């Protein structure tokens, strides 16, 4: 169907660089999320693709032909906005039919297409309602239907669920994924919600200050964040300041023997996912385990979340299977990382995977 | 909004108290100690009149009458409420025998407050208490109730730009280039001559709508007088009341008045209309018509004498602007009158002031400073003053009963104005 190429796309607003030479290729039928904090330029990038902003530099191509010079109303893209998406003076039917009618589609076809669209988003029978008579979630579904009935080559979504409550957000997310899979439509989705990005995307582009920090599939982004920013932004992560010496990596009084080849006498940041901190086996030398003073234990149903302090280093969070609760003795637990990442400079981190025998069950 | 409406009367009450307070305070501090006694003068007129009193009349009066000191109170100032409340207070004081704390009303109509004149609030003016009243001209006394002191007047006159008129005449070859004075035959001096002049110089004259300013109204009434053989006796208040009563004008009355008294005037005014500036685009208000003269759009207009003289002295009019007083019968004007309560705090001082205002010195100031008309004969004023104001001098200021004006305005609008081509 369609491939979207974003080529060194740049946007300046006066002296502010909103989008700074980004490159993304979205393959046919692929679902790509642009994820980043507010103000990182992700919406601007999307608006350039839709045609509402003109790039300062760079190119946007659909199936290898540039669309930069095409006005938004003639682009083969369709967009779902964050809010105020439906025209309040039109019924649901009129909202969805508007774009079709502009294209000169025959009335009968319009009627059938609108019905199909509504069916797809689960709102059959809502044709005569006005937007003000719909809930927020229903409105966004209509907006989605309005976009997809036009059979765009590229579907663009700009934080479409961010103004909805959490439960509804999860439901619509699943629904969107189902529809996108069914239609096989090439989709670019902008969000600041990492959970949303992880659960929806084939690939995630993490943006920061106008640039893409990492573009990869969700598990790679999660397991090997390319930068400290990504590490911190995606999922929960323990970050510890440390230094390397001849024996390994020093964190306060603790030691990590494997410094992954990082030079000695360097300041580094060690990143450990909370679920990759496990109770230390008895045979591990004490200096290689971390003693954590547990300050708070939260039972999150299928696992425990411990908040504590790594002595002399800083706060730490740990996810433990419930069965491991016995390891917490008098408010203290000794843990050891099964895997950690070492960030020593701007380059990609060094990954260290420890031998599985240290894991105590 | 509601709060403001509520506050306004409150504010004027506060100001009233403040004004009386000031008068009281001054009276108390100086009454015993001073060899000069104070005369409280209430001035409700515009700021220019108050300033004139403060800057000119007060020094003149106090120099001539060292035993008195004038205390000027500007009741015409914004929010001060005018002379009405002061007159009410004087009337109340008369009935209770208290001190009214006022001696002189700069302008006041002694027919108000109702009943006050009958109850003896206002002092009858005669040659015994104000000797200079004998200097007042007949036109002034004719409009007086006998309980007031008319002392400054103004009148509608004609003003023309002599340089512009000369230019036109030179262009037409009527006079040689370089002529500096307009030959007399091109300056109208009577109403019929004015009518002819207007037709001879199309587009060079206009008068404002009669309902917007006296400069228009008194030109229209002058035309009416012209059409009635200059007989002012026809248009008195008494004659009107006898014939038409005192109620609202009915359609029939208006038609009757127009048919009987005004038709001739409308004929005259319609005759000149095509020759007026902009084919009879009668300007609205004194300022609009004066602008036509000051911006040199046209040559001749009607204008109030005091505004004309003041504008000229301020250099607002074209440098060679001249004034014309119609010789057959001037246009209508009016006089401002002072009044003195019989229970005045300082009656002697008030009478001295009244007499002073009709003196040659004060009357000269009326002419020179505020551009007003003297209430006394020009003959009693310095010869030099007469020369300076030769153009406007007249002792004849006709009157036209106010009650007749409504029908005139109605008649003018239905008979003169609508014929404008639009």
């Amino acid at each position: 169907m369609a491939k979207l190429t974003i080529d060194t796309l740049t946007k300046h607003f006066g002296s502010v660089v909103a989008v700074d030479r980004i490159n993304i290729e979205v393959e046919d039928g692929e679902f790509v999320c642009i994820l980043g904090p507010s103000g990182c330029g992700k919406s601007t990038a999307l608006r350039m693709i839709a045609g509402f902003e003109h790039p300062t530099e760079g190119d946007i191509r659909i199936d290898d032909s540039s669309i930069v010079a095409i006005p938004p109303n003639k682009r083969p893209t369709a967009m779902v906005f964050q809010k105020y998406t439906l025209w309040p003076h039109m019924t649901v039917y009129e909202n969805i039919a508007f774009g079709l009618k502009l294209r000169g589609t025959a009335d009968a076809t319009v009627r059938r297409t609108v019905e199909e669209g509504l069916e797809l988003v689960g709102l059959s029978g809502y044709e005569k309602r006005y937007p003000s008579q719909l809930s927020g979630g229903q409105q966004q579904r209509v907006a989605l239907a309005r976009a997809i009935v036009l059979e765009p080559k590229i579907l663009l979504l700009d934080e479409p669920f961010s103004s909805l409550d959490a439960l509804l957000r999860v439901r619509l997310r699943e629904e969107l994924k189902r529809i996108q899979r069914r239609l096989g439509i090439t989709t670019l989705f902008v969000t600041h919600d990492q959970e949303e990005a992880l659960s929806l995307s084939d690939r995630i582009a993490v943006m920061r200050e106008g640039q893409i920090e990492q573009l990869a599939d969700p598990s790679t982004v999660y397991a090997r964040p390319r930068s400290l920013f990504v590490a911190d932004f995606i999922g929960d992560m323990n970050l510890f300041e440390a230094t390397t010496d001849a024996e390994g990596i020093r964190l306060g009084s603790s030691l990590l023997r494997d410094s992954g080849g990082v030079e000695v006498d360097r300041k580094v940041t060690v990143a450990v996912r909370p679920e990759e901190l496990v109770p230390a086996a008895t045979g591990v030398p004490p200096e290689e385990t971390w003693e954590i003073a547990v300050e708070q234990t939260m039972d999150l149903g299928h696992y425990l979340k411990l908040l504590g302090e790594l002595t002399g280093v800083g706060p730490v969070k740990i996810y433990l299977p419930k069965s491991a609760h016995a390891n917490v003795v008098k408010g203290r637990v000794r843990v050891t990382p099964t895997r950690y990442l070492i960030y020593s400079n701007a380059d990609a981190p060094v990954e260290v995977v420890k031998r599985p025998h240290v894991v105590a069950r | 909004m509601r709060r403001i409406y509520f506050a306004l009367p409150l504010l004027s009450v506060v100001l009233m108290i403040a004004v009386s307070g000031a008068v009281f305070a001054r009276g108390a501090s100086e009454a015993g100690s001073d060899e000069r006694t104070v005369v409280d003068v209430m001035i409700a007129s515009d700021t220019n009149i108050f300033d004139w009193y403060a800057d000119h009349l007060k020094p003149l009066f106090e120099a001539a009458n060292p035993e008195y000191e004038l205390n000027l109170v500007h009741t015409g100032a914004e929010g001060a409420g005018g002379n009405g409340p002061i007159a009410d207070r004087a009337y109340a004081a008369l009935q209770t025998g208290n001190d009214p704390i006022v001696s002189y009303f700069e302008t006041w109509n002694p027919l108000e407050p109702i009943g006050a004149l009958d109850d003896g609030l206002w002092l009858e003016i005669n040659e015994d208490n104000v000797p200079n009243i004998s200097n007042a001209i007949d036109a002034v006394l004719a409009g007086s109730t006998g309980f007031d002191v008319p002392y400054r007047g103004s009148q509608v006159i004609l003003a023309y730009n002599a340089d512009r008129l000369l230019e036109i005449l030179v262009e037409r070859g009527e006079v040689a280039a370089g002529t500096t004075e307009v030959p007399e035959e091109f300056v109208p001096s009577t109403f019929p001559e004015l009518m002819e002049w207007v037709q001879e110089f199309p587009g060079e004259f206009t008068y404002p709508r009669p309902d917007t300013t006296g400069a228009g109204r008194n030109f229209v009434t002058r035309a009416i007088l012209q059409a009635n053989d200059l007989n002012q006796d026809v248009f008195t208040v008494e004659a009107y009341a006898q014939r038409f009563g005192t109620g609202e004008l009915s359609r029939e009355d208006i038609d009757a008045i127009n048919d009987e008294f005004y038709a001739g005037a409308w004929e005259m005014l319609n005759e000149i209309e095509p020759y007026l500036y902009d084919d009879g685009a009668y300007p609205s208000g004194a300022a609009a018509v004066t602008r036509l003269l000051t911006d040199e759009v046209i040559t001749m207009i009607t204008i109030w004498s005091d505004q004309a003289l003041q504008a000229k002295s301020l250099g607002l009019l074209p440098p060679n602007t001249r004034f014309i007083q119609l010789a057959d019968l001037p246009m209508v004007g009016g006089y401002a009158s002072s009044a003195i309560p019989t229970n005045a705090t300082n009656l002697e001082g008030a009478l001295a002031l009244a007499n002073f205002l009709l003196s040659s010195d004060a009357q000269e100031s009326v002419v020179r400073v505020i551009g007003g008309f003297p209430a006394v004969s020009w003959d009693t004023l310095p010869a030099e003053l007469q020369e300076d104001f030769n153009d406007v001098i007249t002792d004849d200021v006709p009157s036209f009963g106010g009650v007749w004006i409504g029908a005139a305005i109605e008649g003018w609008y239905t008979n003169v104005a609508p014929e404008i081509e639009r």
Partner: protein
Amino acid sequence: MALLIVYPAALSVFDTLTATSADGSTRFTLESYVTFFQLPDALPNLWFTLRITVVTVTILFALCFPIAYYLRFSTSQLSVPVRFLALFPMFVPGIVTAFALIRFLGDNGWIENILFSLTGWEGWVSPIAKPQGIVIGLVWEGVPVTVLVLTAGLSQVPNHLIESARDVGANGRQVFFRIIFPQIRRSVMIVLTLNFLGVFGAFTIPLLLGGASPQMYGHYMANRLYGIGQYTHAQTAAVIMFLISAAVGTLYVRSVVNQRMEKGE
């Protein structure tokens, strides 16, 4: 409120509809309207007033809509001075406006002098003393409120609604007529009725600009009252003005109420 507005209004309407018979009893009659409209200038002046009003309201809308549209959607620096200029007349009293226009557009005014000194052209005909003068003055006075109301109305149309229309394929014209205009219909209605009321009852500008006759009704009524002293006619004129204004005012109130209800306020 009722005491200050409804009561005197009702009293005036009642007054004009009744007359006292010879025997002292009050009877219902349209006499005062009949005699009023027998005045030679009552009807022509009414038509004149309505004509001036319609023309002024139309010009105001045609002039101010593009300005409001520009102010709503422009991101350029120029919109700051444009906004200032559009709102400026609000701070100028009517009487000052009238005299400024006379100086500006009148005979030997600035325009005529500038045209003459630039081109030597002497054919300038001043509109000041013509009905056009009234229209110019009233338009000048009406610009700020018109621009304000329309800009406010346009601001209530979120950018996203316009962009989503562009996105589904609407061109500029379609966006305007199908998306923007339907959503600001009420603001347009409010501006039209508000301007109608303001212009229909205008006093200062028609008094100072325009010719002596025909007169606008506010001026005509005042003239009847102060100039001629016909209280009954003035009152009848006032009631006629009041009824026309009240009819238009009803439209205004309905627009405002509808808008509130639609917003769920």
